[in-house]
């Protein structure tokens, strides 16, 4: 090794980086390289000296406080004081503008754009909607988890609400993308358990772009409404897709008693096929696997528009959902009740859950 080859190692060594044995051997014997190292040390010391002397000024008052909504009044007061046009002329201009835009304002107000219900929609550009979370929110509240397979690969995400300031909302996001040919964890929380929660602020009128390693960006749109939307996603219709098993916001009743209320929990999508299944977990009762075709161990139930009825061990079950369960060519559904099944994550043992899965994979877990 010569000095030219070792020169970069001198810089690295000066920064405390490890260097190759060969470079170290050269540096120990080379006057020229040692002189370079000494120069670096001398330059660094002098730079630190002049830097220390270059910031004697006092830290200016933090104008960042202007970003607080309350500071707007100060700004308004200052602005009024320096206004260069007659105040009556300005007032007239404001009235004209309000009169002209009044119609637009009324239209917007009718849509319920500033209510207490937060709707978050996650989209992947070029691939469409991947998840929707809806609900009245309170601080530190988990809103929803969702997954999307066959992107190709699998995207898993969960969203948490933290706080709201006017039209801005702070949310926490856990997101993970796994390329194809990897078997996903049995549930979203298991899949995301090692993924750190990252906080973001987003404005209601513009999307938040969240980078996802290996996939690109996920865009999240926030909207405040004065009511919970009747359908789980903006592009959904009341008609189930062919082969779709759709269970929206169901209530499960056993022998005339409510067993579980899955309020605002949805299952169903346009990309289902004959191997798709819906899985509903009820604490202490285990899980119920639903499919539109017979499978081993399952009992046959009936579909009547937005209801599923079946009987098991002398009990009658009724599942009432928020919309039609399947297309009219499906009159029956098959149900497997596994009373001993519990989630792999013990923290979820006491929580209701609803998920869509491949029937073969659900049965093997």
């Amino acid at each position, binding site marked *: 090794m010569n000095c030219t080859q070792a*020169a*970069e190692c*001198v*810089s*690295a060594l*000066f*920064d405390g*980086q490890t260097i190759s044995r060969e470079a170290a051997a050269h540096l120990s014997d080379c006057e020229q390289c040692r002189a*370079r190292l000494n*120069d*670096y040390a*001398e*330059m*660094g010391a*002098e*730079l*630190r*000296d*002049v*830097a220390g*002397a*270059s*910031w004697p*000024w006092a*830290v*200016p008052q*933090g*104008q*960042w*406080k*202007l*970003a*607080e909504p309350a500071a707007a009044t100060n700004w308004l007061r200052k602005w009024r004081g320096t206004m260069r046009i007659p105040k009556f002329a300005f007032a007239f201009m404001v009235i004209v503008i309000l009169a002209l835009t009044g119609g637009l304002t009324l239209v917007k107000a009718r849509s319920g754009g500033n209510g207490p219900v937060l709707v978050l929609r996650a989209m992947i550009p070029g691939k469409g909607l991947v998840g929707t979370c809806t609900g009245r929110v309170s601080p530190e509240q988990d809103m929803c988890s969702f997954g999307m397979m066959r992107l190709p690969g699998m995207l898993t995400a969960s969203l948490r609400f*933290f*706080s709201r*300031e006017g039209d801005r909302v*702070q949310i926490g996001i856990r997101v993970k993308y796994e390329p194809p040919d990897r078997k996903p964890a049995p549930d979203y929380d298991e899949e995301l358990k090692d993924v*750190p929660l*990252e*906080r*973001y*602020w987003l404005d209601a009128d513009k999307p*938040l772009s969240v980078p996802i390693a290996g996939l690109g960006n996920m865009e999240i749109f926030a909207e405040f409404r004065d009511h919970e939307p009747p359908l789980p996603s903006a592009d959904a219709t009341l008609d189930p897709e062919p082969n779709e098993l759709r269970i929206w916001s169901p209530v499960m009743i056993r022998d005339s008693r409510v067993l579980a209320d899955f309020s605002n929990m949805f299952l169903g999508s346009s990309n289902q096929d004959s191997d798709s299944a819906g899985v509903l977990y009820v604490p202490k009762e285990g899980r119920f696997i639903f499919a539109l075709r017979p499978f081993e161990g399952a009992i046959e139930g009936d579909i009547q528009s937005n209801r599923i009825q079946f009987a098991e061990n002398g009990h009658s079950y009724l599942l009432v959902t928020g919309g039609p369960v399947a297309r009219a060519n499906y009159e029956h559904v098959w149900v497997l009740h596994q009373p001993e099944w519990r989630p792999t994550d013990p923290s979820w043992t006491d929580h209701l859950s609803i998920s869509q899965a491949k029937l073969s994979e659900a049965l093997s877990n």
Partner: protein
Amino acid sequence: MADDHELWERICSRDANAFEAFYRDNAGRLCAYLRQIVGNSQAAEDVMQETFTQIWRSPNGFRPALGSLRGYLFGIGRKRAAEWWRKRERAGEELLEKGREEAEEGRASFSAIGDAFARLTEEQRSLLWLREIEGQSYAELAEILQVPVGTVKSRLFAAREELRSIWHSSGSRARSKK
């Protein structure tokens, strides 16, 4: 790292006292760094204020696993300084030229090593400042500058060699030692 994480959590939850402390601890250092990029104290203060305001309004994107909170702050400050230069460019070549002259004056006035340092490119000044003055690690520099660690290593070497060359050729070194 744990302290950074806790402080960040408090900032994200709109704790004004925590942000004030963060501001007081870092505003002077950030200002000194920005002065090396934008060249004059007033502009550096403006960019510094914009940087803190941006973080306070939209505290997004800090990842404790990838570096320190100060590194994150300096990364945002650097981007805001780049925007400041772009705005000057849009405002016209005349203003830009004036800005460059101001920048030269602002940087070149403080010492012999400062003269040599002022003749480096903006990127080299930025890199050397963050490494030598702020003590940022290679990984943090990679995060701030959005380049791979290997590139940080080679650019640091190039910056040091350039500074050394100017320092030697101008006789600054001899003057400094007197």
